[in-house]
């Protein structure tokens, strides 16, 4: 029985293919090749001269782009002042525009997603001017880095082929490719997957036995995760969803001691709070600068501090209208604002939306659960295709989503049976990338935030490959050691 379990454990742990990469040279060569392939694939999209296929996309437009603020930020170090459709091609032109606009200048209020302004820099450096820069290049760099992190993490925990397969599938994901590489006004909706993949990579390494033996590595990763989490919060709140599964997987599955877990959790919280505080201080300074410049030109300053605000319950509330209008909810976030201003405004907007959401959930839990169920189903069955692409070329693998999902249940059950930490971590974390898809609006295309089906497909393919290798009598070290014993 124990031998059977060991065999199954080797299979679900993909140890047979790991056995093919035993020599240091082979491992390094594989890593270099994998990273080159991933980078080349992303470069092929970046260098396209037309937008990729836009069928799989997020149709939301809110928070899409802060291009309108970037010229002012770039030249005058203030944020956020809208100079959209005005001449800001050079610093002199921007100064002339400020003088000409005068009283019409205004510091905008309640700008969220504010750290996304940094994503305009790479393209500005390439083009040499801020007024036509978009986030495309910045987003591409961030996504490529997250894919490389995934490749490296899977390689580190001994599943290099799986890491490459996941990276290639996620890197070809038509939703992500469109959101990053389309021409024209950039959006930040790709950040959820990019950050989710980074969280996956960090959690995988952090949950591995090696991180127990290497506390400095663990501390570095915790700090890195906290910084990414805090930065993501300043760019797009929902991207934090990727960290929920990572935290869950790490707390439950990792082999750190309880004391270590508590220490790392505290470190993570402190780092997130510290980074957030720093970002707030930074943007408060930019707001003050913007107010000062606007006032100098006779415009209207914001004259407020801490203009940041959250809209999470608004999004959750709007999602109650995803599938029916039983209670009058509409899957339209602007309608949510309209509803709020037409009713009890004695509560602030977010608590009011939260109260209404929770009361509705409690009064009709079956209806609420039905919404969640339909969203989960959509994540698996109405998601992006299993696509591998390069530039304008792509091939959609003719795999049925339902069959692939069901096929994954077998190795998943085996992983549970043998308590294979890495595999379980992988599933827990990858599922969490799409957590926002379950909680929020669906019809806008938010189910594409989930790439768990790509993890599943890659994993199933690797298990099949491992089974083939097992039949070819490739022996992983564990079985060899057992046999020798």
């Amino acid at each position, binding site marked *: 029985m124990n031998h059977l379990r060991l065999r199954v454990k080797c299979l679900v742990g993909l140890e047979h293919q790991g056995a093919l990469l035993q020599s240091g040279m082979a491992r390094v060569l594989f890593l270099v090749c994998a990273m080159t392939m991933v980078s080349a694939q992303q470069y092929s999209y970046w260098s396209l001269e037309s937008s990729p296929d836009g069928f799989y996309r997020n149709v939301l437009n809110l928070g*899409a782009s802060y291009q309108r603020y970037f010229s002012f930020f770039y030249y005058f170090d203030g944020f956020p002042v809208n100079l959209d459709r005005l001449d800001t091609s050079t610093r002199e032109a921007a100064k002339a525009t400020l003088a000409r606009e005068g009283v019409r200048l205004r510091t905008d209020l309640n700008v969220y997603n504010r750290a996304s302004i940094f994503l305009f820099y790479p393209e500005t450096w390439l083009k040499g001017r801020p007024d036509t820069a978009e986030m495309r290049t910045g987003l591409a760099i961030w996504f490529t880095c997250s894919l490389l992190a995934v490749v490296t993490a899977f390689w580190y925990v001994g599943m290099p082929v799986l890491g490459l397969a996941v990276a290639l599938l996620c890197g070809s994901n038509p939703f992500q490719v469109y959101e990053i590489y389309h021409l024209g006004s950039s959006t930040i909706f790709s950040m959820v997957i990019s950050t989710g993949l980074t969280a996956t990579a960090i959690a995988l390494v952090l949950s591995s036995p090696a991180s127990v033996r290497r506390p400095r590595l663990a501390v570095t990763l915790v700090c890195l995760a906290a910084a990414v989490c805090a930065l993501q919060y300043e760019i797009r709140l929902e991207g934090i969803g990727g960290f929920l599964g990572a935290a869950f997987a790490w707390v439950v599955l990792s082999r750190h001691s309880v004391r270590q877990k508590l220490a790392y*959790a505290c470190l993570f919280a402190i780092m997130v709070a510290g980074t957030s505080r720093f970002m707030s201080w930074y943007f408060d300074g930019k707001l003050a600068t913007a107010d000062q410049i606007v006032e100098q030109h006779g415009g209207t300053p914001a004259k407020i501090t801490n203009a940041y605000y959250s809209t999470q319950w608004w999004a959750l509330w709007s999602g109650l209208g995803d599938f029916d209008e039983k209670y009058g909810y509409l899957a339209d976030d602007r309608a949510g604002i309209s509803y709020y201003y037409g009713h009890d405004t004695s509560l602030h907007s977010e608590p009011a939306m939260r109260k209404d959401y929770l009361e509705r959930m409690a009064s009709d839990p079956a209806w609420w659960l039905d919404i969640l169920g339909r969203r989960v189903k959509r994540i698996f069955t109405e998601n992006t295709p299993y696509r591998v692409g390069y530039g304008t070329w792509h091939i959609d693998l003719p795999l049925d989503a339902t069959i692939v999902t069901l096929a994954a249940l077998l190795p998943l059950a085996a992983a549970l049976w043998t308590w294979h930490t890495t595999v379980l971590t992988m599933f827990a974390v990858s599922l969490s990338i799409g957590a926002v898809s379950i909680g929020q609006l669906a019809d806008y295309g938010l189910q594409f935030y989930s790439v768990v089906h790509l993890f599943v497909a890659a994993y199933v393919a690797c298990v099949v490959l491992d089974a083939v290798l097992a039949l070819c009598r490739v022996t992983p070290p564990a079985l060899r050691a057992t046999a020798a014993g």
Partner: protein
Amino acid sequence: MCLTRRPEHYNRTTQDEFPDTGTALMTPIGRLLRIQGATVVAAVMLIASGWTGLNALQVYQWTLPNQYFVPPVSFSADGRYLALGISMGPAYDPCPLPTCEGRLHVFDLRSGTRVVASTAAHARVMSLAFLHHSPQVAAGYADGKVRVWDLRTSQVAAEYSCCNGKWIRALAAAPNDSVLAIGAQSGQIMLWNVASDLGGDRTERGSARSLPGHVYGVSSLVFDRSSTYLISTADDQHVRRWHVGNANTYEFSRAPDKAKAHRGMVKSVTLLNGDRWAVTGAYWEGGTYKDYASSSPPDHILRLWDVDTGRPIRSYPLEFGVRCCLRPLPDGHRVAFLRATGWSEDPVLEIFDFDRGQSERTVRPSMGESFHSMGAHPDGNQFVIAIGDGNFLIWNRGVGRVVAQLVSVDDGWAVLTPDGRMEFSDGFSRWPCRNNVQRACRGGAPANSTPGLLGRVWAPLQ
């Protein structure tokens, strides 16, 4: 196969992972039971701290760049008067008193004078409607007040407090002036018996009755010529027709064919073809990615309805959704409206011809301008477009360009034509030169005024 030694980080064997053979091969349940209590406590603490942290963020109210405040522009039915709702204060919602104040300015286009210029500290003016048989205009305010201004006395003739103080986003006077329909942000629709209240003393209460209304804010109202029916549109994506006498209603849009319904917030409605057709337009925010990927997204559509039956007649795809202000042109088969242009949301003025089933003309704002709302003269030739800060463009359809700019503020008003002529009202010289008037000023002092210019701008219409 000869296996070489793995490096330390790679040396992850089953034995290494679970040194205790007994533990390594435990069942999952047994393993789960071994998870120490403190780990669970840590998880609970993390969740609790996350929840607390998220709650701590929820302290700010939405203030959004004017999503709902559309500075209203309205002409009287005979085209003699032009009413403008002007906001003093920041351009965001909500902006209550005293941060934002509203002004009502009414011009007599025949005499070229401003006959009403309210300076009292009223809330923002959200909607306007002229009465048909008397020189009076009703204004709906952001604090739920409705005031009827008499243009002969420049005074408030009647006042009504409505709808729990919510924004009055839509007003419509029945053609026989018997009732004034009031549409509020709360979704309420009230029928104010304005005729009787105007006959007596100014009242704070008014006599009104309520229609069931909508769940979300009412965006537009229009009566048919017989004053029998009222058609309302709202942010809840519905278009409804009400019988003024018995408050019976039926849906235009949701039943029986939902596919032909609006799926965005319906922004405006107007009547055409002798009131037999209703035209509605929505600003699209709903729909799915599949809809968007298709050639005709769900609600970038102008919809034409049969008023009698409520059935859809035709739909006309637009480049983007309708932002506001559907106005009928007198030929009976054209409408003008402000249409969104894309994600930047800067609207354009569009004139749509239903006979040809396509747009006749599109007017785009100049660099640095934004169109906020629009009013069409009953003649169908002149349009007044609000561009913010008390500035209005007068666009002439016949010549196809802006023929004048109108500035109306507390101190006075000015009209400026592209050839450099201008007229200033008394007192306007005290107002500093700014914005688009700046180029016509010399060192801050206005140049010479051309008396009667405002009247001549409209002269072809008289």
